[in-house]
């Protein structure tokens, strides 16, 4: 037994090494990438003029989703002395994925279920609580949250704080007092709907979407009037054009996305009604084009044989008008998605000066393993380059825009398909990347996971899972389950990378002094050099980090860095939910790759705020 297991181990290591070598080979970029200088689009940052407000008013810092702050007091030279200024324990054991907000001298955080909102007075010492709001969501909502009972943050606009609850309410609070201003119910727990995403406020509209792609939920993005909470419009991700808000203005770049009611006809009869395409990622907005951008999640069920067709408009990206929600263009990252490759990952907006003039771009690192550069005015794919290990597809056809799937890796009922890479959480899941206009690089937290899977019949029972795949995940080539990399989007190449043993499930932050912050699931919070990736500082926190780090200038003029620790989320649920690591299919197969995590960290939510001595 010992000998055979050793032999198996040797074989596995050899195979892994082989794959690693194979993985080192990168194919040529699919398209001639645009070249030139990258500058940040409008928004509040305006790095050209050097204006930095020192606040962090939106989860991604700005509408372009950069997570870049121009603050530069904490530098590569002094970051080694960074220390804890104050902490706050939330008393909640589940995954803390939210970004704190800092507006003026107040910090706002929203917790996982039961979705408390805490405001801290930053003028008082050590994060004195200012007010707390209790949302009291329905307890049964916990039972339909696919991937831990997380919340990814709040939004601030014009004296109000907006956030979503797990039981499908969007709530507006008076930012000064925490008093509830309005509370709108948007979905049904009984149908499997939850809400976990961070809202974005654009032109007086609060944009929110639903979660539940593993429960046959029909996805939507909804705009609420920021003053009243009334629904201004709702755009579904499946169904007739009228429901999807597709009208005369809709001009998708690729022919395959043109037609009447494709959200009905690209499905077997009636399947679009339980077809997924939920909206739970981050929303971006370009004020010049007046377009907002967001991704749609996986089609349901995961078992692709029960939903023949392209399954529009799932696993893709919409550009819409904020005023009435009308769709302007759409592009499908993964037509007829085979692997739960949600298309919800954030899009970073940036402008490039090219030899042919300025070009408005959109950067997106998809679950399917490709880093896309799109023309965000019309949805044309300019380049799509593998940024992780991919066995499920061979490139993107830039004429048709279609992902070229590998037929042998297509899952079937009753057949186990091996070495599906990336696995269902993708080369990168929700964990948001950062973009620095100073280095013109993207900083990408990602996964290195593969899986074996077998299709099974999925039965639709409202409010219960609608999946139909048995999955076992494992580390990808090299054995490291995570990677943190710096990526040159215009050169379509990796500049440096750090192998991380665990999936990097936290967001990234980059500053004006070329410092990059991210955390790992064993509770290490790190600062690395944005140019080289050299580790400059780290701290061991109470629990694994799956939150989004931010930085701000306090009322005392000092620069602070804040992040939640509190392991959880799909990758980390094994710890707080005490899942059984002897069942490889637990947590939709993720537990098989995370069996050691309960020994390496513990559950519990803490807000950490760091500064220089």
């Amino acid at each position, binding site marked *: 037994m010992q000998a055979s297991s050793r032999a198996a181990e040797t074989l596995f290591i050899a195979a892994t090494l082989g794959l690693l070598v194979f993985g080192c080979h990168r194919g040529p970029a699919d398209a001639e990438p645009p070249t030139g200088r990258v500058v940040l689009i409008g928004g509040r940052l305006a790095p050209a003029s050097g204006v930095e407000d020192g606040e962090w008013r939106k989860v991604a810092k700005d509408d372009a989703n950069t997570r870049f702050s121009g603050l530069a007091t904490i530098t590569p030279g002094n970051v080694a002395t960074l220390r804890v200024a104050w902490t706050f324990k939330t008393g909640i054991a589940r995954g803390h994925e939210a970004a704190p907000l800092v507006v003026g001298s107040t910090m706002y955080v929203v917790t996982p279920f039961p979705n408390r909102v805490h405001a801290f007075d930053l003028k008082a010492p050590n994060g004195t609580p200012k007010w707390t709001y209790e949302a009291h969501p329905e307890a049964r909502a*916990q039972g339909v949250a696919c991937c831990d009972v997380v919340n990814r943050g709040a939004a601030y606009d014009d004296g109000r704080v907006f956030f979503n609850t797990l039981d499908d309410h969007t709530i507006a609070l008076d930012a000064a007092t925490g008093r509830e201003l309005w509370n709108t119910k948007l979905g049904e727990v009984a149908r499997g709907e939850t809400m976990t995403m961070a809202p974005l406020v654009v032109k007086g509209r609060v944009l929110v979407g639903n979660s539940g792609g593993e429960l046959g939920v029909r996805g939507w993005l909804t705009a609420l009037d920021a003053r009243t909470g009334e629904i201004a419009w709702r755009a579904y991700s499946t169904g007739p054009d009228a429901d999807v808000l597709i009208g005369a203005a809709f001009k998708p770049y690729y022919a395959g996305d043109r037609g009447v009611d494709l959200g009905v006809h690209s499905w077997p009869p009636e399947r679009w009604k339980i077809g997924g395409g939920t909206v739970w990622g981050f929303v971006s907005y370009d004020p010049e084009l007046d377009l907002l951008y967001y991704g749609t999640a996986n089609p349901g069920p995961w078992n692709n044989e029960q939903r023949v067709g392209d399954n529009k408009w799932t696993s893709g990206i919409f550009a819409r008008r904020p005023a009435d929600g009308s769709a302007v263009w759409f592009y499908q990252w993964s037509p007829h998605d085979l692997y739960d490759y949600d298309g919800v990952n954030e899009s970073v907006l940036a402008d490039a000066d090219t030899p042919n003039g300025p070009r408005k771009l959109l950067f997106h690192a998809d679950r399917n393993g490709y880093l896309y550069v799109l023309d965000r005015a019309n949805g044309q794919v300019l380049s799509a380059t593998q940024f992780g290990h991919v066995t499920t597809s061979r490139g993107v056809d830039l004429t048709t825009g279609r992902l070229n799937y590998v037929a042998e890796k297509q899952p079937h009922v009753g057949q186990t398909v091996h070495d599906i890479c990336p696995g269902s959480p993708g080369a990168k899941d929700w964990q948001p990347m950062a973009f620095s206009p100073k280095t013109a690089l993207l900083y990408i937290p990602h996964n290195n996971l593969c899986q074996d899977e077998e299709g099974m019949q999925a039965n639709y029972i409202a409010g219960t899972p609608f999946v139909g795949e048995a999955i076992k995940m494992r580390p990808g080539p090299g054995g490291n389950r995570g990677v943190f990399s710096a990526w040159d989007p215009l050169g379509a190449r990796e500049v440096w990378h750090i192998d991380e043993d665990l999936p990097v499930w936290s967001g990234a932050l980059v500053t004006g002094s070329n410092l990059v912050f991210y955390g790992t699931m064993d509770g290490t919070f790190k600062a690395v050099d944005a140019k080289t990736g050299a580790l400059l500082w780290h701290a061991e926190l109470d629990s694994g980090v799956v939150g989004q780090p931010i930085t701000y200038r306090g009322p005392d003029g000092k620069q602070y860095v804040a992040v939640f620790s509190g392991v959880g989320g799909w990758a980390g649920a094994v710890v707080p939910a005490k899942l059984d690591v002897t069942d490889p299919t637990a947590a939709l197969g993720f537990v098989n790759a995370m069996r050691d995590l309960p020994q390496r960290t513990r559950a519990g939510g803490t807000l950490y705020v760091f500064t220089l001595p």
Partner: protein
Amino acid sequence: MRAPSLLLLALLSAAGCRRERRSFSEPSPLQARVERAEPLPSGEPLSHFLDNAWAVSEGARLFGWYNCAGCHSLGGGGGMGPPLRDGAWRYGGAPADVHRSIVEGRPNGMPAFGPRIPDYQTWQLVAYVLSLSGRLRLDVEPGRPEAIAIGKPPVMVSKKLPSAEPLPEAP
């Protein structure tokens, strides 16, 4: 040549007999906690389900069919819902408690399946759920399913695994 062959055959038979002398009805350590005395409202004794291999295997099939596996996972390790193979019970682990959880639902997310599932199937599910934590007689426990869940997980290659404590083995 014949004599040694016969001798060998006899020895093998004897060895075989010894292998077959398994104690089918030996209770598992947790089994004592399963209360069997109370009959069902229909008058049918509970043992018709809990001591019945066919009922348990039907429960295993229904566990997938009614999407129990979607939340509690194919092997009962949990996910959206809590694990069912660890011996910890939020709402009680007696057969009647598990039955009530399935029929009426529970406040933290377990839906009520009462209107959807005939009562005899609910008891088959109860039997299967109890088998996941080894609380039924060994001879009625379900066999190895053919699904992907079974088998030793691949060797984890990791640079930073703590050396002192090896990973728990899959069954």
